[in-house]
């Protein structure tokens, strides 16, 4: 067996094949970027352990991720907020984690996307589990997992074909995702779901920006809207909201957090069209948001109540474009500063 020649040829063939693979995906518009995964979330969560009273932690669902730009916020206030929002999830388990497992007594901005915030306290339900599993991972991650993440950053930042997001997007380019795109006749009675393509980028600070393509390519934006519609209208439909249970759970944590000096600001970000109609129908403002604000007795910002915030138009009924997110962040920070809800360390 000529093993040395075999090894040399193997190395050459491997390098050629992986280079061609990388170049092919780059030619298709892919570029090196980070995955929004539990490792990145855990790294960000670790920052809360050392955060001071002047720090701001962002929790919520995807609207907080898309609409609040952490770099813009830092430029305006001198503090980079810690972005811990999780797409498609309720912020309740993350808030519970911060209250119970840290000594943080700064400001927590709680994004309220009503169908998610008021959805459930059932631990196995997807909106809860998606968030709580990340807190669990943070608590239990091994040193090897921490090192794996550190080592993966330069690779993720250098190679476009590395894409292994927790969300398992239709257009991820790992082997499993590619195999899932193979179309064969339908066998089961499950409705065929429209392809859910990644429509945002994330950086090391978990700053999420909507892809420019969402603004320039209407068909692409429409494909995301089709996903929202399918998610919310196909069977089985999501269970009705658990208003009492979720508010009670939140208030318990809020009481404990405020008792140690922490501050909470509730935030309702913009939504339009289908989402706005659905949210108004399932979780009408007066019965849900207003009641939550009254019971929490905490500062609350509803985009409809502020001239600076109410004129933003979402791209796909739920999230702002990158440019609008910059403006929204700027205006939101102005509102928060005007109302003395956060501190501007730059002027202090």
């Amino acid at each position: 067996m000529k093993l040395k020649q075999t090894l040399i040829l193997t190395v050459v063939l491997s390098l050629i094949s992986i280079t061609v693979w990388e170049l092919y995906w780059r030619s298709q518009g892919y570029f090196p970027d980070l995955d929004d995964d539990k490792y990145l979330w855990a790294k960000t969560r670790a920052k809360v352990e050392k955060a001071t009273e002047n720090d701001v932690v962002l929790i919520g669902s995807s609207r907080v991720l898309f609409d609040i730009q952490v770099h813009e916020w830092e430029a305006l206030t001198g503090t980079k907020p810690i972005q811990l929002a999780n797409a498609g999830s309720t912020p309740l388990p993350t808030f519970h984690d911060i209250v119970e497992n840290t000594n943080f007594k700064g400001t927590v901005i709680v994004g309220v996307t009503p169908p998610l915030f008021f959805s459930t306290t059932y631990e196995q339900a997807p909106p809860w589990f998606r968030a709580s599993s990340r807190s669990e991972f943070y608590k239990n991650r091994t040193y090897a997992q921490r090192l794996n993440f550190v080592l993966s950053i330069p690779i993720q930042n250098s190679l476009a074909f590395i894409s292994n997001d927790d969300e398992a997007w239709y257009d991820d380019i790992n082997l499993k995702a590619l195999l899932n795109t193979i179309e064969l006749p339908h066998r089961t009675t499950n409705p065929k779901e429209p392809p859910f393509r990644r429509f945002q980028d994330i950086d090391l600070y978990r700053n999420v920006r909507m892809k420019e393509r969402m603004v320039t390519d209407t068909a692409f934006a429409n494909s995301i809207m089709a996903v929202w519609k399918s998610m919310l209208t196909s069977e089985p439909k999501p269970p009705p909201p658990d208003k009492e249970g979720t508010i009670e759970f939140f208030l318990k944590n809020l009481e404990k957090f405020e008792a140690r000096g922490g501050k909470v600001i509730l935030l309702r970000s913009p939504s339009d069209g289908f989402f706005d109609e659905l949210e108004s129908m399932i979780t009408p403002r007066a019965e849900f948001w207003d009641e939550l604000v009254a019971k929490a007795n905490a500062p609350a910002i509803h985009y409809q109540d502020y001239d600076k915030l109410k004129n933003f138009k979402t791209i796909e009924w739920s999230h702002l474009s990158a440019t609008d997110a910059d403006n929204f962040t700027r205006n939101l920070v102005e509102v928060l500063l005007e109302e003395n809800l956060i501190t501007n360390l730059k002027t202090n």
Partner: protein
Amino acid sequence: MLFNSLSFFVFLVVVLVLYYTKIFNWTGKKRMLLLASYVFYGFWNPPLVILLWISTMVDWTAGNKLAVEQNLRKRKLWLLLSLVVNLGFLAFFKYRDFLLDNFTAVADTYGYGYQTQPLDILLPMGISFYTFQTMSYTIDMYNQKTERAKTFLDFALYVTFFPQLVAGPIVRAKELISQFYEEKKATAKQFIWGLFLLTLGLFQKVVLADTLLADTSDAVFGATEALNFWDAWAGTLAFSGQIFFDFAGYSTCAIGIAMMLGMILPHNFLYPYGAIGFSDFWKRWHISLSTWLRDYLYIPLGGNRFGVTRMYAALMITMLLGGLWHGAAWTFVVWGALHGIYLVIEKALKHKVPVKITFWNGIFFAFFTFTCINFTWVFFRANEFSTAKNMIESMLFLNPDGLLLLEYFDLLKVFILTALLFFTHWYMRRHTVKMVAENLPVWLFATGWAMMVFLLLIAQGSGEQFIYFQF
């Protein structure tokens, strides 16, 4: 640390560089390997390295005493100490909640209403492997079948040697400790072959087990409704392939890594799905465990020395405990029991119905064996007996209106992979990877190897744990 992780890749490069540079003499290299092994384990959960130390200290002491002690009663006490400590670890960390649950259930049956609080203790990774490995040393010392380890360093490295620490192969002292006595260095051919085996093992784990089979198996065994015939079989076959590729992949990596260091570890899998009969299966599946159970349980229980009835009893007890070794649940016991029953029936029939194996009846018997093995995997994989019952019924056509869960692509993927797996194992019954590789032209071998590297890189994987770590 997992073999399928970036941290392990860096770890291995550092270990190999330190091993092959001239800054250490042989003792220094062994110390480095021992320290590296503790780092390898500690990167998962540092405090649990203490268990390894305790096991090492107890068995080193017991081994030393057994080497010189002539008094039979004292020899038994030293052996007992080793067994109590190692089995005590297992009982406490692995079986405590299971034992308490069953005790509670029995107490409740008699109306005592006994309440217990499960501790939910973290199961130390690989505890079943390293405790069995160290126990084999003291038992062999007791039976005077092995020499005392020359130094504490050699013994500690035997207990902790990182390539096989957490999921085997479970190596006997005489197979490994003696390799530490003289300086070992892989030849260029050994090193490259070890690298190939590492690639092959990772390919089995990351591409075949995790990427192609795991999701189907998880979906089917996670279903709450009774499934259609095809879905149930696809799920079972997917698990059958997944557990083989996962576990054999780990063993292949371990053998490859050891070979890169110039050490030889024994085979742990020899194409088990090509086995003709169940005795043959256990000579091919998890060989280091089956030989351990044979030598330290089946033979001491009498083996075949005291008549047929005693032999069958010994066989059943061995397989039941072998099942329990895999996990603290009654489903594993049933898995072991089924294997025990298969073996008993096979032994009973062997003398009464002599069959000459030919190519055609051989492939039929291998397929029959594979099919029967698949029924056992249902109990191994199912978390609840109700799931197993549903699955078995569906696999036997008893749920004709069962749920269609999988798409055509999943079915095709699983059935094609299973067919390839079965026929590969059938062909490889009398071959080794090395024999096949030797007959390949360089370009073909290199292309196959490069394809594995390519698929590994594009599969990426999410650092899934090996299934057997939990055992």
